[in-house]
């Protein structure tokens, strides 16, 4: 198998990822791409608490993930790659052509962002970033859980 889901979600590992997506995908590993979290063992332990013991959790910097992505993509198990923001996943796609689909799972309100969907708030710059990813041939959709309709980027960005 390979990476079953590339997700942008500012909550990183939480119920929708572990249960909502992890169960139907039969995911056996989760890769969190986050430079700051990579440097904090204490926070990593917090995130691991929400993951069943049969699912491996890897914390990687953007640079580490870019190097390891081919290996993870060739893994016999299904994996999920999650990043907290668009910029991180966009950086990961720069040299990694394995990323063909991106799931926008949760980007919440902050000053400067406007609501695009119930679970997606974007600045104009962030919306433009998503459109740029789509223009490169990557399928970008917003979908918080698998049972929801995947909303094409043209409808929310």
């Amino acid at each position: 198998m390979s990476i079953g889901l590339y997700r942008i979600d500012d909550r990183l590992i939480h119920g929708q990822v572990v249960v909502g997506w992890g169960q139907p995908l039969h995911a056996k590993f989760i890769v969190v791409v986050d430079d700051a979290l990579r440097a904090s063992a204490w926070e990593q332990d917090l995130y691991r608490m929400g993951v069943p013991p049969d699912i491996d959790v890897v914390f990687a910097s953007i640079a580490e993930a870019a190097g390891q992505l081919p290996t993870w993509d060739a893994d016999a198990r299904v994996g999920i790659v999650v990043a907290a923001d668009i910029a991180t996943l966009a950086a990961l796609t720069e040299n990694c052509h394995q990323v063909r689909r991106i799931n926008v799972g949760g980007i919440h309100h902050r000053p400067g962002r406007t609501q695009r969907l119930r679970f997606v708030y974007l600045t104009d710059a962030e919306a433009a970033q998503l459109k740029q990813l789509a223009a490169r041939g990557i399928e970008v959709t917003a979908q918080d859980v698998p049972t929801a309709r995947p909303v094409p980027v043209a409808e929310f960005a």
Partner: protein
Amino acid sequence: MSDLLRGVIVSHAGVAEAMIAAVESIAGVKDALVPVSNEGCDRDALNRMLTDAVGTTPAVLFVDLPGGSCLTGAALYARGRADLAVVTGVNLAMLLDFVFHRDLTPAAAAERAAAAGTRAIRVPAA
């Protein structure tokens, strides 16, 4: 301690508000618990909500699941603070015990609540 502890329930969706309504209905104790929902919150937003909910009172943060954004937010907020403690797996039994034992330290109250909640999990004979 001079201040009675506050309980802050940190949950998904409307679980916290529903649990507080149930506690008030059963125990008749009001104003001991404050709800915080992670609905629509990123980490920063949840941190602000916790700040508002806790105020300046020592508190126990009751989190619904032993992992996920509620726990992450609560644990990060409480890290290094002796006036706060965190308990996961909140259930009605632990809250009912807590509201009558709010004169403890946060750490002691958290331990007591966890024990009360654990005792409530049973499988009655059919």
